[in-house]
């Protein structure tokens, strides 16, 4: 697992002495013949904002439901706070969940909804009232407390659902697509609120999402899931800058993938003979043998126009601008090389669009630096 080498603070997941708060051991869940969760092992630490990210059907929701106890695993164990909870029913787990549909009880008011969990714990009336007040305050929904769910807007429902699942002061909160039902603008505001709330309460959050932007902005760490398996677990930056496989590189953002073969190692760099006909020099800490087929992944914004052609021609591509997508702040250029390869480059629009140098059908040379991408072996 690669991670940022220049991180100043040692995070809990990097500290070998820290005990994980949630420990998932070789967890498998089969539905019929389908593996929804396939031999997943995972540690989540206290105070994390952990996201399970993947496309629909990748098993992320099943993993969350296994944590909540709403599904029983086919094999494997789950430990929460040092206790094996695999056989503990959902109503006895120290975990609460916010459902994707919010699952607010339609026959109860906001207050009664929040009270429901407290009642199950047989808390005294005074304490329950205090807790409800605290939650209403925390989520700024005090004026809504006598309303029923069908009298609330989508955003209000989301807050009530959050209040209800936080009311029992769980150590671990599970959130299934917490922002999925909100419209785009509300979603962006709520993202930050959710992060603030999490930092304030110190509760460990585990969310499930299919929205990479959401996962990138909110999470301390992200697990990318595909076909029931975890492909990579890392911080958002590391996931984006240092994907460990082709799937992750392509899943997050857009990426140029250039195939090639290692021909030489020079210190912490390797020289790669590219299939498009040139040479690439990339930094790599992995011990590749000479002759290993590899793939170089470079983000489009790490590409730049080559102002001074010539030199050794390493990390360079020459082609014709085939397509330009103007997005306002940036433009995406698609460049077709002589060998038929299509490379993507993003440039910030410093000049107004009309005055830009690069235009359709124009010859262009693009280049990148050895530290701006990663070398993947699959």
């Amino acid at each position, binding site marked *: 697992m690669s991670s940022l080498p220049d991180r100043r603070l040692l995070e809990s997941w990097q500290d070998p002495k820290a005990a994980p708060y949630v420990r998932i051991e070789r967890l498998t869940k089969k539905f019929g013949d389908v593996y929804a969760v396939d031999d997943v092992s995972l540690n989540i630490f206290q105070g994390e904002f952990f996201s399970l990210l993947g496309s629909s059907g990748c098993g992320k929701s099943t993993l969350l439901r296994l944590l*909540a*106890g*709403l599904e029983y695993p086919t094999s494997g164990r789950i430990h929460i706070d040092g206790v094996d909870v695999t056989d503990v*029913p*959902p*109503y*006895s787990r120290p*975990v*609460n*969940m916010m*459902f*994707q*549909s919010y*699952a607010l*009880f*339609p*026959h109860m008011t906001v207050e009664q909804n929040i009270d*429901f*969990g407290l009642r*199950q*714990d047989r808390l005294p009336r005074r304490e329950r009232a205090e807790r409800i007040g605290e939650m209403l305050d925390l989520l700024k929904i005090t004026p809504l407390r006598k309303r029923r769910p069908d009298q609330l807007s989508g955003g209000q429902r989301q807050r009530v659902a959050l209040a*209800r*699942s936080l009311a*029992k002061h769980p150590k671990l909160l599970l959130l299934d697509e917490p922002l999925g039902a909100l419209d785009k603008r509300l979603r962006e505001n709520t993202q930050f609120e959710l992060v603030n709330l999490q930092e304030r309460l110190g509760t460990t959050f585990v969310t499930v999402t299919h929205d990479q932007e959401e996962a990138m902005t909110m999470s301390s760490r992200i697990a990318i899931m595909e076909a029931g398996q975890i492909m990579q677990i890392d911080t958002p930056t590391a996931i984006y800058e240092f994907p460990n496989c082709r799937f992750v590189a392509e899943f997050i953002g857009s990426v140029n993938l250039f195939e090639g073969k290692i021909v030489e190692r020079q210190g912490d760099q390797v020289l790669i003979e590219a299939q498009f006909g040139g040479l690439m020099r990339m930094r790599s800490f992995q011990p590749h043998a000479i002759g290993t087929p590899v793939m170089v992944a470079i983000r489009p914004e790490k590409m730049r126009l080559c102002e001074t052609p010539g030199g050794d021609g390493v990390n360079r591509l020459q082609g014709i601008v085939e397509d330009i997508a103007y997005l306002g702040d940036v433009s995406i250029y698609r460049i077709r090389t002589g060998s038929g390869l299509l490379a993507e480059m993003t440039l910030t629009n410093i000049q107004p669009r009309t005055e830009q140098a690069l235009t359709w059908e124009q010859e262009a040379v693009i280049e990148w630096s050895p530290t701006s991408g990663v070398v993947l072996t699959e």
Partner: protein
Amino acid sequence: MKRRSWPLLSILVFGYAFLYVPILLLILYSFNESRLVTVWSGFSLKWYGELLHNRQLLDAAWLSVRIAALNASVAVVLGTLAANALVRHGRFRGRTGLELLLTAPLVMPDVIIGLSLLLLFVTLQQTVGWPDGRGFSTITIAHITFSLAYVAVVVRSRLARMDVSLEEAAMDLGARPLTVYLRITLPLIAPALLSGWLLAFTLSLDDLVIASFVSGPGATTLPMVIYSSVRMGVSPQINALATLVVALVAVAVVIAGLSMRRR
């Protein structure tokens, strides 16, 4: 789609007229002084008076109401259990069998249900000595048997439409399965339980054929009294009774409609 076509509208009007004219005429003639339907000899409440002094009919009505109420209550419990089984227990062994057993009573001709139950009761009486004689209990059992299938249909569709995550959320908040059922599931399917109860009550109150088979001496239900008097031809007392039934149903529907609108 927005434009209404005339042929369609006229069929609709004809259909409703077909459904309601006979009942309306029945009501009208319950207030007729004369015994003959063709003659209107003036407004009168005398048939209602006679109805209220018809001891045999009132006894039968009371018996029928008691049977119907007990039947509806038991059928709601059993029908709800069956609906739970079909909606919440997935693909258990014998599921197809249960579905079959719950659909068959909906369409099975009354004569067959009645005859077969009677033969069962007779055999049981011979072999285990129960039921001791036929009447209230045997009619109620027979009615429960087909009513529960109707209740299951009503409750099942409500349960199937209910969001499962509501129950999961309750469990996640610490409620045990029984609490979840009592505090979340039951309140949410309550309207279906009520309409199931009313349906079972009406079906029981309405049944002539099955009750005739499984009833014994001394136990005469309201439909049996109506039937024997109707076989003789038109009877103004029955018109009056029909009017009372319609009025009762109308009041119940209005109340139900108002309470639903308030929600």
